[in-house]
């Protein structure tokens, strides 16, 4: 595995990718994560998908999405987007009550759009540079800025503050497996599309984070005709 990573980087180390100065390390870590995924996480996610009906997975996604909305409100506030923050707070209130502890996303049906914000984006909004691309064990692709953001996201994550350790671990595992199950259809599509899965996912990650910081409307790439 490590040998394969070295061979791969040998061919690419010279290419000009200023965003990925530690490509050798990243490819090794990517291979490690891929191994872990195919050995443990994906099979578990497949089993979970097999035994749960759609509405259960929707409920689980909504439940964790609702918890996330509270933090999304905080991040929108930190970014000075008061209207969005109020809407996210409204979503949290509506879904926690009418939506029965967040199991149903009533707020979306009422026209309160779901946003996606986190500390990495907030730091980006504040002007912090993305820094180098880095593949973290288990967490996968990040850049330095989003890695720092991740530390804040985790510190603020309500699930991490559940006092009973077994409940906390069960919730963490459920969220991970449920999220992974949602990505299962994408696996084959990425395999079909990517010339080199590592760089395909890296470029996708960097592009997506850039777009998110600009809320989907980044300045147009001057190279793009």
């Amino acid at each position, binding site marked *: 595995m490590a040998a394969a990573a070295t061979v791969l980087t040998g061919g690419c180390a010279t290419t000009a990718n200023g965003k990925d100065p530690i490509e050798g390390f990243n490819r090794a870590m990517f291979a490690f994560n891929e191994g872990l995924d195919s050995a443990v996480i994906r099979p578990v996610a497949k089993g979970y998908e097999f035994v749960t009906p759609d509405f259960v997975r929707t409920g689980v996604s909504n439940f964790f999405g609702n918890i996330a909305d509270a933090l999304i409100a905080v991040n929108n506030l930190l970014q000075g987007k008061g209207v969005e923050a109020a809407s996210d707070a409204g979503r949290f209130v509506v879904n926690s009550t009418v939506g029965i502890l967040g199991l149903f996303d009533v707020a979306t049906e009422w026209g309160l759009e779901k946003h996606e914000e986190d500390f990495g984006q907030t730091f980006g909004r504040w002007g912090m540079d993305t820094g180098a691309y880095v593949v973290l064990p288990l967490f996968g692709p990040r850049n330095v800025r989003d890695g720092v953001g991740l530390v804040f996201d985790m510190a603020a994550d309500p699930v991490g503050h559940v006092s009973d350790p077994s409940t906390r671990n069960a919730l963490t595992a459920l969220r991970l497996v449920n999220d992974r199950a949602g990505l299962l259809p994408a696996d084959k599509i990425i395999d079909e599309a990517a010339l080199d899965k590592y760089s395909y996912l890296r470029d996708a990650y960097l592009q997506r984070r850039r777009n998110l910081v600009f809320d*989907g409307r980044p300045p147009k790439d001057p190279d793009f005709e």
Partner: protein
Amino acid sequence: MKYFLALLTGLLMTLGAAAQALSPDALVKSVTNDVLDIVRKDKDIQAGNTRKAVELAEAKVLPHFDFAHMTRLAVGKAWRQASPAQQQALTDEFRTLLVRTYSKALTEYRNQTIDFKPVKMQAADTDVVVRTLVQQPGGKPVEIDYSLDKTDQGWKVYDISVAAVSLVTNYRGSFAQEISAGGIDGLIGTLRTKNGGSEAAVASKQ
């Protein structure tokens, strides 16, 4: 035969009329709904019959794509250094890769529903983005945006963004990597191998 011809003419006229008359958002909506209606009824495609999905894509979707434009954008600066033959080869191979990927995505379709957002555009606009939101049972919604520009043959898609990731921009990075390693012919070779490889994989599964 006569019936078939009538059907074919009807189909071509519909496609032609649709492409000429429809606004870009109406075009995206009608094509998407047509295709998903077929996939919903087609057990073969749902079971992973990629060949049938490719046929569907070829008939319904691809006429609305401008692959030459997509390839030019994905290859970027090196496009001008490529000979006409290389440009043609790149376009053909990239088209094959995208068609395969798109068809694969069709076989993964599971009851998702799509919200189409209205486009605010001026009459003089020749380049628009049509935004859609795919709601999937048990998963987070995914944004899929289509970039279209106005050509003599009507509105044509030249890029698709999935979850804020532009396909063309993403390939630009991979293509640049291949070109710097092995030149334009190197990229053509990699695409050929990739396409041949998935062809073999598809064949062996059936």
